[in-house]
């Protein structure tokens, strides 16, 4: 068993990893930027090491400093969490070169999957279906290839992510411009202008499979996660099982996921992302996330496993303690991501002081958060401040429980998407499990919070609050008034 792990991350995922380590009796070291000196992950860890100024490139992305910190305090392993350095193959290699355990896959696997063109080719060779596309290198052939694929097509950057270097093209006439601007954006953002083409499947769904490999050649999967509810290409609600899948399709996609992971000798936790066409029920490999996923808790809820503990075990060289047929699921889990953002204003981040952050506590409700009342939501990092996760006996039970949990998630001081999430859960398309990746954009572009008849109550509450405070102040003032302390004090002091 490891004795000390450094967590190269912040926020809720750092907190979640620290707690798993505490259970296992492993000491934890946090790192923090100047902006995070008092934040929750720093308060919870056994040790905390300042690592630089707030900008990630000066702190949470400084692999060299992080490795140095780990060595200086005698940590034996580094857990990268997600985001930041988690998918950086050079960092993984450097950690291992320094004689430390990197809790994640091999740099080799990350590199293979990091190149989207290479990954497409490799997947096809491994019998994993990919979206019809074209990954040739000659610009002149793109036009013909797009014609063959059929419009609309997607121009994508080979090393891209987060929607950068990506263009949807509906007409052949627009293709040359789209390719040129995507190349320019990709060059700027990722230092590589290579792009490729993919068929754009309208009204598709986004599903992913949790896979897990060990150093002994075993790879298994832990079923799917349905991630179609997205805004600005970012997931906001995930659930498992997916309402779309039946057991036959689930088995096929699971087998494809394991094949994909085996093709890159994948070790530790990873996720195979797919696009599924709900009309044809065909699925296509999209990419692999070579790290723990934000939404991993819903998989834990239905399987009863702790993926972080499993990551630590497998990184220490242990074999996976079960086979595919041992993995069963029970119930229906949903995750809602609570963002400090304004859904009625383009989902722009809203930054500030979380004056109050109160989360519900109830059976089968799980909260993952990195903030507590009084904490600052800083502009420097991701605006996701909490994840609310529930397990229900079935999908409708889970939706009901999630609505209850969100109603009892009280965050004051920064605008959040909590009311918005409740509106999404209540939408009939979500209710019948028919969400597609364009669902939010199509159905909620004009959304505004509805405050029916509660503004009078809010006024009464604040007025009461002022009455009570004033009464309190009068008492306090009196007690501090030196005129009242002693008779005779008034004259002459």
């Amino acid at each position, binding site marked *: 068993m490891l004795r000390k792990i450094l967590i190269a991350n912040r926020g809720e995922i750092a907190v979640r990893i620290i707690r798993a380590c505490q259970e296992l009796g492993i000491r934890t070291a946090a790192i923090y930027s100047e902006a995070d000196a008092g934040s929750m992950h720093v308060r919870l860890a056994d040790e905390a090491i300042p690592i630089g100024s707030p900008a990630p490139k000066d702190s949470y992305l400084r692999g060299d400093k992080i490795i140095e910190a780990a060595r200086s305090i005698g940590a034996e392993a580094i857990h990268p969490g997600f985001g930041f350095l988690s998918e950086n193959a050079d960092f993984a290699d450097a950690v291992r070169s320094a004689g430390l355990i990197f809790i994640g896959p091999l740099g080799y696997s990350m590199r293979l999957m990091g190149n989207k063109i290479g990954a497409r080719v490799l997947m096809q060779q491994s019998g994993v279906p990919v979206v019809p596309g074209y990954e040739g290198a000659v610009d002149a052939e793109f036009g013909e290839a797009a014609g063959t694929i059929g419009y609309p097509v997607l121009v994508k950057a080979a090393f891209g992510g987060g929607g950068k270097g990506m263009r949807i093209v509906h007409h052949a006439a627009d293709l040359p411009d789209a390719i040129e601007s995507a190349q320019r954006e990709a060059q700027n953002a990722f230092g590589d202008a290579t792009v490729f083409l993919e068929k754009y499947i309208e009204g598709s769904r986004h599903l992913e499979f949790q896979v897990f490999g060990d150093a002994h050649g075993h790879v298994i999967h832990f079923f799917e996660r349905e991630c179609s509810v997205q805004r600005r290409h970012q997931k906001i609600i995930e659930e498992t099982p997916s309402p779309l899948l039946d057991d036959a399709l689930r088995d096929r996609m699971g087998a494809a996921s394991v094949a994909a992971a085996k093709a890159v000798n994948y070790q530790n936790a990873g996720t195979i992302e797919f696009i599924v066409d709900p009309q044809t029920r065909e699925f296509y490999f999209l990419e692999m996330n070579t790290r723990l996923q934000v939404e991993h808790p819903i998989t834990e809820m239905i399987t009863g496993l702790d993926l972080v503990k499993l990551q630590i075990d497998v990184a220490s060289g242990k074999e996976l303690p079960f086979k595919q047929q041992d993995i069963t699921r029970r119930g229906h889990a949903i995750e809602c991501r609570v963002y400090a953002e304004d859904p009625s204003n383009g989902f722009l981040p809203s930054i500030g002081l979380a004056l109050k952050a109160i989360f519900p506590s109830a059976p089968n409700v799980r909260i993952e958060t990195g903030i507590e009342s009084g904490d600052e939501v800083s502009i420097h990092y991701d605006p996701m401040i909490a994840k609310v996760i529930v397990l229900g006996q079935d999908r409708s039970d889970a939706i009901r429980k999630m609505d209850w949990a969100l109603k009892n998630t009280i965050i004051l001081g920064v605008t959040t998407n909590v009311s918005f999430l409740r509106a999404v859960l209540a939408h009939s398309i979500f209710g019948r499990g028919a969400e597609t990746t364009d669902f939010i954009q199509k159905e909620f572009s004009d959304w505004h919070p509805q405050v029916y008849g509660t503004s009078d109550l809010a*006024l009464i509450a*604040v007025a009461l609050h002022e009455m*009570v405070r004033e009464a309190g102040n009068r008492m306090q003032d009196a007690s501090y008034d030196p005129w009242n302390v002693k008779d005779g004090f008034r004259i002459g002091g």
Partner: protein
Amino acid sequence: MELQFRIDAELKTIKIEREGENYRAQIDDRVYAVRLEADPAGEMIFSANDDRHTVFIAVDGSKYFVAIDGDVIELTISDERPSRRGNHHHRDDSLSASMPGQVTKVLVNEGDAVERGQALVVLEAMKMEIKITAPHAGRVAKVLIRQGQVVDRGQTLIELAE
């Protein structure tokens, strides 16, 4: 006690008076018999005309955040009292940065007439862009920043005249 608040753009007035152990509140012509049942820190349980509500309240200067039945309502007190914090606040006619960041675009010039909701300045931090928009129609009285400048949270960017 009479208090005035803004909720979104609307100005609302509430009168509240003690009535024995309880309170009497009036908003426009609506009268409420209010009973405060419990008041642990920052939480408050009261009944208004016999309906029971649990609310959570947080105060930041002149701003009140109230969570009630799953909704969050933001109220700004609009009386003359000096705020308890004394900073973070700015007059109605100036627009400040809602976050620290870099000014990537200045979209208006001094003297321009602007519509309510019109984008005036674009700020960027991390990979997010934030547009600073006009809270009401008016004229740009002063532009206090330039493109590329790094601004702090609360720093005044633009002054608007009605």
